[in-house]
């Protein structure tokens, strides 16, 4: 494989991975504070629908991303109310959010099907494209890819290099320890769920406003749930979220590339790759992620059983 082809595959992988990466970052932040949210899929869907609608109305993709994030916050607040406020089991509450997001986005999204939007202006004619060697590659990426990469850095620095990040992580390790520091675990967890909601809403908007530029019912196709699984593979670490999301992006890009190259394999068999590859990576990395101290202690109860 020559370098150009490799870079081409990498750029497709980055484009494909970005919505999943954003959702992973959001879920990482939420889980680091000790809460699991399976509603990510629903939050992505309302983010995608609201973001697409906003872009369609205002003509600005940036407004679409902002509205998508806001929609994600709104839906995640229901999860916060149910599992933190009322004490509903987190897995069940998350699935309720998934259903609600799925239903609401389909209900209000019917009129969006088939609508056209502008999307982001191509970077292909900017200064980026004039750079030697990497110019062609860099200019293929869209603003949301750069946003995703920047947020990896922001989340990584926040969690590991700031005082707030330390407090945030200790909410996931031990609520009691946090209370002794004079902080409120509940308040912090609500913040974490809402922040996760913003990221996942943004992830959905990135999908509809930038990646596909269309709105179709249930267009996330499991990416949100996949992101929850991939957070385990990435060991709740924002820095690792990038390579792990890229594994998903590469398997998706590969399945698309093989199809366009006229592979004899059925596109539906190839379509299992984006789910099978992360599943296999999950198995291979599970022992390691359990042995380490990476899983937030407060999550152990949620992941271990129903209590």
């Amino acid at each position: 494989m020559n370098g150009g082809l490799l870079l081409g595959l990498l750029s497709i992988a980055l484009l494909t991975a970005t919505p999943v990466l954003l959702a992973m970052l959001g879920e990482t932040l939420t889980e680091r504070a000790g809460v699991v949210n399976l509603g990510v899929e629903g939050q992505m869907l309302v983010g995608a629908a609201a973001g697409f609608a906003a872009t369609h109305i205002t003509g600005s993709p940036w407004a679409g991303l902002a509205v998508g994030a806001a929609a994600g916050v709104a839906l995640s607040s229901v999860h916060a109310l149910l599992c933190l406020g009322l004490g509903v089991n987190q897995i069940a509450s998350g699935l309720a959010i998934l259903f609600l997001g799925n239903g609401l986005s389909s209900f209000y999204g019917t009129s969006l099907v088939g609508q056209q939007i502008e999307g982001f202006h191509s970077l292909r004619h900017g200064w980026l494209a004039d750079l030697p060697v990497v110019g062609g590659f860099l200019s293929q990426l869209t603003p949301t890819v750069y946003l995703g990469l920047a947020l990896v850095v922001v989340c990584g620095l926040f969690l590991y290099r700031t005082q707030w990040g330390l407090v945030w992580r200790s909410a996931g390790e031990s609520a009691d320890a946090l209370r002794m520091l004079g902080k409120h675990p509940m308040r912090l967890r609500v913040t974490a769920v809402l922040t996760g909601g913003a990221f996942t809403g943004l992830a959905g908007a990135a999908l509809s406003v930038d990646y596909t530029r269309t709105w179709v019912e249930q267009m996330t196709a499991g990416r949100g749930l996949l992101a929850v699984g991939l957070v385990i593979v990435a060991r709740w670490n924002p820095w690792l979220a990038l390579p792990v999301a890229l594994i998903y992006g590469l398997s998706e890009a590969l399945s698309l590339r093989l199809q366009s190259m006229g592979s004899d394999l059925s596109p539906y068999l190839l379509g299992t790759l984006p789910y099978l590859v992360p599943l296999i990576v999950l198995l291979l990395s599970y022992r390691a992620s359990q042995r380490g101290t990476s899983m937030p202690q407060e999550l152990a109860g949620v992941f271990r059983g129903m209590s």
Partner: protein
Amino acid sequence: MSTSTAWRTLADRLTVPAGGIGVFLLLAAAFFFFNGYAPLTIFNQIVQGAFGNALSINTTLTKTIPILFCALATALPARMGLISVGAEGQLYFGALAGTAIVLHMTSAPIWQLLPAAVLLTLLGGGLWGAIPGLLRAVLGVNETIVTILMNYVAIQLVQYAVYGPWKDAGNLGWPATIAFPEAAKFPSINLGGLSTDWALPLAVLLAVALHVLVEKSRWGTGLDLLRSNPRVARMAGLSYTRQTLLVMALAGGLAGLAGYVQTANVQTHLQPDISSGYGYVGFLVAWLAGQNFLRIIPLALVMGGLLSAGDALQLFAQLPFANTVVMQALLFMSVLGVGAWRARRKAAV
């Protein structure tokens, strides 16, 4: 127990369902009101669409069958603390396996074909459930995540089959297998204007049998012990690995039956969209029932009615079908929320 305490226990038991349904009705009314529909008219249409006449009751019963099987498939693993969200995929893979035998024995008589197809369905669904069970028991991998990922794989595999090797050329491009022979279908039951398949009494019977097994048998106590106190369970000689595999495989088989009935009796072909989310609806029903097999039966009927009413509303009120998904979510949130709130209040007293 004196009469007054009996009344108090009854009132106590009714608080959560009644409160949950009350909150649900308020939320649903608000949803319809803000979208410009008269809530009472819509509620009336929902009840009519679900149970109003023989035709709507038949539709409701048809939709109840897969929900019931999938709810059992969620509740059984939950008895030992496993959270499986895999009924959807097990449904697809079970239907795929059952279809394989139907395509190979098309002209066999019913006493051969139906049992063979059901057996293959159980094996297929069972395999799809056993894999996450094995990974959980041996490697400790979270079963919730694995079952979710495997759902998508199973759906893709069904698509592969019906767009590829099993596609019937006679369908003029429509991706589906040949029509199933009568001998592959569950026979129908007709009572007056009502009709359904034998799969419905089978599902109810299985629910009752599971209830008895789980509540009264040594095995059921073992599952409870494995959930609440794995260490003691192990000392009592119970194998976590074996029970996890068994429970997950049984659950997979049950969900597979949902897929087979849907394929053979309702759609009469294997086609890409078998389920319209019955696996997930079954999950909601199992949780609403508090993983109690008997309570699952009426709740599955209610959810079946809601889905059937969704079709009618689409037709008469021009409401997008998605409103039923919204209502399912609202019902689920209301009952869970009231239940959890009640549990907290009780714990605080």
